[in-house]
């Protein structure tokens, strides 16, 4: 073989590329290459001893409604990557789904998305995983109102997901809960006692973690439903004067967070003691712009905001407000979903290309 050239291109091979090369080497070669340089030593040690962890958040799905030229309402979907590096092979256009037409995302939970076909019969509700490009259709679902559907999936506990449909009972202080599990592949009905009347906000977003679904109820508290025992608990909201509808519930760093907009001030609270229901004020900032709260970063102290048609990240540690992406237009009605990719095994029936 000729003497190897020194291509300058090799200088800037991204770490991800080097990792994908290194993971194809036998351990003996890898070990020998430990002394190539400090950066190779670090990379090989990491590659060798750690699993390749996916990022805790890859981006946001963003929906908005507008009117087509004939003044019919239509739904638009945009995906905004929040990674500073390449987000890998995640099909965020959802083109692996065997459906034509507009897909509307209803919920997002630890890598899985709950979706429906826009403007089609209610039976077409499905769960998909954009990282694994897998999906499954939910059987026997006839719903008058989609917004009472919640997705619960925790890959650290089980490969199976749970779909929850909620309806308040008008006669007694309890909830009608229907649960679909991918394990049993069937629906089951429960009555969950809430002790008090519950009014959910329309399009209320659920936050699932530790086996419990958390929902903002209209009267200044959170309803926490344990999806195994079906025990329902109330968590008082932190002291705030504003209407709850300007607030957002989310999960960050393993704790429940609540952000609320009061005029031009944003207040962020964290549920410090879950058992006792003790909130602490985490951050307060007066932003000299009109903003809307979109979501929490699952790991870092970041809140995503929309300012006019710009998606921004607010960093609580530094007080910085950074521009992430310019949205196509300033919407009237919009929804956003934080997306954390999950590359592991899921229980979705259809795998792309299989």
């Amino acid at each position: 073989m000729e003497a190897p050239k020194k291509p300058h291109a090799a200088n800037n091979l991204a770490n991800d590329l080097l990792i994908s090369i290194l993971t194809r080497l036998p351990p003996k070669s890898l070990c020998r290459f430990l002394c190539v340089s400090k950066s190779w030593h670090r990379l090989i040690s990491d590659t060798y001893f750690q699993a390749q962890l996916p990022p805790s958040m890859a981006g946001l799905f963003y929906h908005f409604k507008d009117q087509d030229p004939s003044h019919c309402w239509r739904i638009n979907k945009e995906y905004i990557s929040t990674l500073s590096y390449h987000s890998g092979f995640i099909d965020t256009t959802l083109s692996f789904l065997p459906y034509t037409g507009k897909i509307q995302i209803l919920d997002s939970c630890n890598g899985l998305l709950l979706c429906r076909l826009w403007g089609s019969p209610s039976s077409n509700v499905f769960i998909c995983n954009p990282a694994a490009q897998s999906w499954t259709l939910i059987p026997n679902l006839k719903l008058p109102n989609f917004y009472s559907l919640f997705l619960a999936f925790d890959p650290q506990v089980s490969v199976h997901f749970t779909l929850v449909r909620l309806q308040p009972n008008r006669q007694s202080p309890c909830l009608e809960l229907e649960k679909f599990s991918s394990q049993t592949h069937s629906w089951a009905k429960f009555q969950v006692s809430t002790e008090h009347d519950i009014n959910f906000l329309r399009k209320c977003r659920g936050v699932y973690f530790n086996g419990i679904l958390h929902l903002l109820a209209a009267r200044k508290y959170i309803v926490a439903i344990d999806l195994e025992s079906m025990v329902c608990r109330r968590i008082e909201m932190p002291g705030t004067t504003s209407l709850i509808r300007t607030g957002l519930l989310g999960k960050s760093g393993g704790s429940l967070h609540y952000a609320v907009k009061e005029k031009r001030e944003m207040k962020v609270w964290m549920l410090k003691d879950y058992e006792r229901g003790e909130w602490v004020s985490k951050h307060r900032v007066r932003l000299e712009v009109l903003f809307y709260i979109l979501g929490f970063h699952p790991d870092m102290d970041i809140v995503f905001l929309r300012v006019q048609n710009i998606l921004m990240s607010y960093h609580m540690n530094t007080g910085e407000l950074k521009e992430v992406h310019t949205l196509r237009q300033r919407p009237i009605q919009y929804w956003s979903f934080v997306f954390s990719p999950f590359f592991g095994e899921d229980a979705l029936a259809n795998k792309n290309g299989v």
Partner: protein
Amino acid sequence: MVGVKKKMVTLVSSDGVEFVVEKRVAEQSLFIKNALNEGGVEEKVMIPIPKVTSDTLSSVLEYCEKHASATEFQENEIEEWDKEYIEKADLDLLYYLLQASYSMSIMGLMELGAKKVASLIRGKSPQEIRELFNIKNDFTPEQEEEIRREMQWNYE
């Protein structure tokens, strides 16, 4: 189907050369596919490919073209083709292809390139690796000696 106009897109390399290719070929790249879909409209047909030069892009598109019609071939036929394709790339092009496949999200090409580079370097010495990748040894002789000792512990 006779008379059906194929959807075309124009890709612009970093040095400004335009490549007009079929949409289905360009969509082998998830980066382009996402860009096309996020545009949401049919009119968006000019896509800049930053950091990929025309030489590299033309080679990348050769790969995409073949794989866009992969269903027409036997599986081993594609495998053979891949092998020849990556075999004829010199080391420079190989690195450029890897970078392009990474920035353009072409999973198959990235795997192909990574496999090829891995096969080229597996038997090499650390010094040969430094030359191949143009890496400076930033260890002191003592540090290097210590790592070598640890290695022997594991592999002698």
